[in-house]
């Protein structure tokens, strides 16, 4: 359930508190652009933010710091493994 992809915000229309205005962001991924609705996004995005898009709606504004942490933690875990392995192999 729930195919969703991260896309970068390059334009924002509307107002977070006014549901009657079109709450729309133009988003981009590798040159593919799409209008996405912001009606239900958890946090109103800034330009440059990444949104997680599902069926035309942004469901989440990705926290770039959180995302970098996410990757960093995995990398660290991975590096630790590689290091451990290197040690193992040396021994």
């Amino acid at each position: 359930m729930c195919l969703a992809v991260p896309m970068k915000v390059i334009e924002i229309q509307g107002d977070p508190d006014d549901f009657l205005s079109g709450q729309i962001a133009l988003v981009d991924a590798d040159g593919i652009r799409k209008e996405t609705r912001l009606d239900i996004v958890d946090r109103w995005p800034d330009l440059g933010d990444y949104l997680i898009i599902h069926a035309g709606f942004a469901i989440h504004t990705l926290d770039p710091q959180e995302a970098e942490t996410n990757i960093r933690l995995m990398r660290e875990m991975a590096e630790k493994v590689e290091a451990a392995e290197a040690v193992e192999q040396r021994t």
Partner: protein
Amino acid sequence: MNPGNTILLDHGSGGIASQELISQIFLKHLDNSILASLEDSAVMENHPGKIAFSTDSYVVDPIFFPGGNIGTLAVHGTINDLTMRGARPLCLSLGLILEEGFKLDDLERVIVSIAECAKSADVPIVTGDTKVVPRGKCDKIFINTSGIGIVEDGVNVSSTMAQEGDLILLSGSMGDHGITIMTRRAGISLDGNLASDSAALNELVALLLDKLPSGSLHTLRDPTRGGVATSLNEIAAAAGLAVEIDDQAIPVKPEVRAACEIMGLDPLYLANEGKCLALVAPEQAAKALQLMRSTAVGTDAAIIGSLKAGKAGQVVLRTAIGGSRIITPLHGEPLPRIC
């Protein structure tokens, strides 16, 4: 030709309006002496070798799209199908079904493209036919092209020639045409730099046939409808061997991949209109790759896998993380998904 500047039923009557259409649009752009004779059939010089024969109908919607139109597909598609048996394309037929009310300007635009593609591939349209159906009984224009090619003696290219150990080359990126058409359809609007890969492969194949040692090019196949996934299954089944390919080796343009991610589609199942698979004896694969890459339509060519003993007809994909999955033929028309 008529004050409304559209196709009328009379244009398909076989009478004077049909003749006007033929002379004012078809012969104007497609002119060659064989076609211009307007006989019941074209008659041409024969050439030594076997005869290759192929047919395809084109019903694409929309009829104009980035990278081509229904006319470019019609010429390239049949040239490619001939070429996939190692044939040198000799000529094409052109069968049009037009909807009453179709704009003559659009018709001319399509015919101009057909003329250009036929000319640039050096494969003339030698015979044709036009039918007109009442409005609402077809969608603007359907095109059939059939083609004749000559397979020179000593050339034997077919799926059944594939052999264990053959390396599998792919002439370029996957999914460009399929995703371009899908994103032009009503209801699904993505913007971006997507374009069909509509192209003729006869030069690329001629190069392979000329430059590779005789007998080293075993199989060719153009992964159109059903995509490379389905073509590989067909090859594996015909050869009675297993196919193994490497996901990371398969060229897919970033924008095509992005559009696929958004809609939940797999580029391996999308149609291509200017790409081919080539199965080559392993010792000639590097050379074949270099030859492909030397052509304008083959710059992104890659070796994507090989034929193995194993479960006959099975296609296995090695994934980016080192796992594997079985690739089945397409089950149904790819549709955008939510999960």
